């Protein structure tokens, strides 16, 4: 691949594996002075991973990194910083217990000597004044006392501030998600000034209008690959949404089921429309990650499962996606992990009956194909996918009429997925209700009805044939044209 002329930084054919998962599959990207690259794609497309490779946080499994046309033998965060690369992250990265000035010292190690506080104050104030005129933020204030928007402004100002080394490339990862329209406009105006002065910006946003109006070039990622790369002028909102999805892959095998009778589960949400689910229905929760889907599942769980009284025949069961933090019990055997949610079915005269428990475990071992020679082996002896199957078995083996699933297929191989899909369908046919949050499009295609979330609220409800990748993407991304 020829080197792009005058690129500040370039990555070539980067491949990144996390265990079995391929997060980046041969991505090349060059960042040239005087341009703003808009990077878009759905969850899991590889945007965050490529950003981490560019800012030196991750060393790629394969591929080259070049700066000013020269291949770099070693690359890391320090080297990236020396090249003038700065990052603003979506998750706010300031220390809340320190003042803005003290945080600047951490971000800019060059600030040294007797008068570093005064120097830091001058730099930050200048940068804030330039980007957000009339901001009203005191650089001596403790970060913890600032609002989320103010923190984001400080973080942006810090990235653009010029201490000993000037910034040449700034990565903005969802920078406007906590800014209002006025502040966002100020930031985007500054982005244009910055690139006019010869700097480079890598802008990630799910607000398509922002990308289309600010970026000079748009890179679309999907499944760890760059699927489209064109000047921004050649995209329309509709064509951008289309590029993010794949028109070739059809959603297969829709279930033809109507919701029967009154809803078994309802929840009023603070804004947007409310949620309800009927008996035997598979309801999907879609949208970009972190837009309120998990919070809603937890609210549903809390509303139906008491933390004080044991429930005889619990109303809801939960399948965790983050199995390390709220799924498995690491000290226990596979069997104990499987039966913890349905122990009240396994007692005789008040005591746990081991043979009944073992029989229940064996039944699910064969039903869901947990690959282990012995259920008494420790849970950690299983692969991640099989641990996830144990969590499914735990929830499905209860008598709960409702099963909540929090993106449960993360890191699960395709074979396991097909097995679990089959079981979910069979259980739904038998009258069980499933509420299923997933970031994977195919799984939404298995649902009877899908709610699309954005910014903590339900913004769209799709039914039956209307559940398409395109429709979900359009609702997930803000923008006039995208919704059309």
């Amino acid at each position, binding site marked *: 691949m020829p080197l792009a002329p005058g690129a500040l930084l370039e990555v070539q054919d980067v491949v990144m594996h996390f265990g079995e998962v391929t997060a980046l599959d041969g991505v090349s990207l060059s960042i040239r002075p005087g341009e703003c690259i808009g990077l878009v794609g759905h969850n899991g497309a590889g945007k965050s991973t490529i950003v981490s490779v560019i800012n030196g946080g991750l060393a790629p499994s394969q591929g080259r990194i070049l700066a000013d046309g020269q291949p770099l033998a070693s690359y890391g965060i320090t080297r990236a910083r020396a090249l003038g690369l700065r990052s603003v992250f979506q998750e706010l990265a300031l220390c809340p217990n320190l003042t803005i000035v003290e945080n600047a010292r951490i971000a800019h190690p060059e600030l040294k000597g007797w008068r570093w506080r005064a120097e830091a104050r001058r730099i930050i104030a200048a940068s804030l004044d330039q980007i957000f005129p009339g901001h009203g933020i005191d650089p001596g204030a403790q970060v913890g006392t600032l609002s989320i928007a103010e923190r984001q402004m400080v973080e942006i100002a810090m990235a653009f501030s010029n201490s000993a080394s000037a910034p040449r490339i700034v990565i903005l990862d969802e920078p406007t998600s906590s800014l209002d329209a006025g502040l966002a406009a100020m930031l985007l105006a500054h982005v244009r000034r910055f690139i006019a002065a010869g700097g480079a910006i890598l802008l990630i946003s799910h607000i398509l209008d922002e990308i289309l109006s600010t970026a000079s070039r748009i890179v679309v990622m999907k499944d760890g690959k760059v699927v489209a790369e064109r000047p921004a002028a050649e995209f329309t909102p509709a064509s951008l949404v289309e590029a993010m999805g794949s028109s070739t892959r059809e959603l297969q095998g829709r279930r033809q089921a109507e919701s029967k009778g009154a809803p078994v589960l309802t929840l009023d949400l603070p804004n947007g429309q409310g949620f309800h689910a009927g008996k035997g229905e598979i309801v999907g929760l879609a949208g970009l990650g972190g837009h309120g889907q998990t919070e809603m599942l937890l609210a549903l769980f809390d509303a139906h499962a008491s*933390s004080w009284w044991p429930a005889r025949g619990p109303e*809801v069961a939960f399948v965790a996606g983050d199995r390390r933090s709220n799924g498995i019990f690491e000290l*226990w055997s596979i069997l104990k992990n499987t039966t913890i949610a349905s122990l009240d079915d396994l007692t005789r005269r008040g005591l746990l009956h081991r043979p009944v428990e073992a029989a229940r475990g064996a039944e699910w071992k064969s039903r869901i194909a947990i690959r282990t020679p012995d259920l*008494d082996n420790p849970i950690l002896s299983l692969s991640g996918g099989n641990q996830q199957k144990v969590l499914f078995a735990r929830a499905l083996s209860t008598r709960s009429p409702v099963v909540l699933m929090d993106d449960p297929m993360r890191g699960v191989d395709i074979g396991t997925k097909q097995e679990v899909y089959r079981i979910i369908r069979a259980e739904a046919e038998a009258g069980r209700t499933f509420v299923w949050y997933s970031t994977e499009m195919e799984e939404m295609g298995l649902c009877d009805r899908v709610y699309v979330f954005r910014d903590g609220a339900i913004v769209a409800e799709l039914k039956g044939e209307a559940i398409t990748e395109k429709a979900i993407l359009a609702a997930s991304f803000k923008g006039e044209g995208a919704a059309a």
Partner: protein
Amino acid sequence: MNALNRLLSRPWLWSFAAALAVWIATVAVTAGASSGGLTDAALTFAAFSVFVGIGQMFVITLGPGNVDLSVPANMTLAGTVALKLMDTQDSMILPGILVTLLVGLCIGLANYALIKALRIPPIIATLSTSFIIQSAAIWTNRGLRIKPPPVLADFATSSTFFVPNMALLALLVSVLAWVLLNHTIFGRWIAAIGQSMPAARMAGVPVDGTRLATYVLCAILAAVNGFLLSCFSGGAALNMGNEYLLMSIAVVVIGGSAVAGGDSNVPGIWGASLLMFLIVSMLNTYQFEAGYRLIMTGLIIIAVILVASGRQARPR
């Protein structure tokens, strides 16, 4: 061979082995003359550690940060209130027992109320209640030493079939605790919470109810221990619970329960309780000075824990 391996993998084995070694070392010095008396005393005093140790074990099983520091004050208050109520009369024994249980129940509820409602860490919450309880005990006691009813005093200091009654009671409680921990839903829930509270919650475990019940259970066992100890020693004293704070925690740890929670065992409490008493007896027999005695006690405990923690981890 397999059976031997399984025995060696038991976490409680080492505390028993150590207790036996110390017993032999002590008896050897006196050429066997003291073996009967020593065994008797060891079983009796171990029984008192077993009561509080089992309660503390359930609490510690709940996971990191869970511990009940109100055990000594609780013992003092329960002993004081019960003996004052019974006022040396045999006819008042039943009300005395009931008020003991009530004291334990109230203290357990108070502890968890502070932990839950005010979100105070358990170590601080139980420490605070312990100051309040101790003050209440001082106020009730007023320096008087009331004797236990004769029937109770007699029961507490005698033996049945050559085994001290206190040890028999402790054995009964241990068996019940073992069943509770290993064969009931409640026991599973405690162990689940100890491994991961969020995971337990999402698995449908009534986390708050289980934790409350556990703190109440621990407080009731401590109150019962205070009641029995004051009957045994001829009256309630304000400082009688003091040594049982560290004792209750030490026997859990030496007995092979996981300090981080989620994995506990009852037999180890017995081994550790016997060991703790026998070490002191042995060092006394060898006529060590008090300072050396404490150093030796510490070293022996460290050695037992080191040996026990070297064992192969095995899923339960």
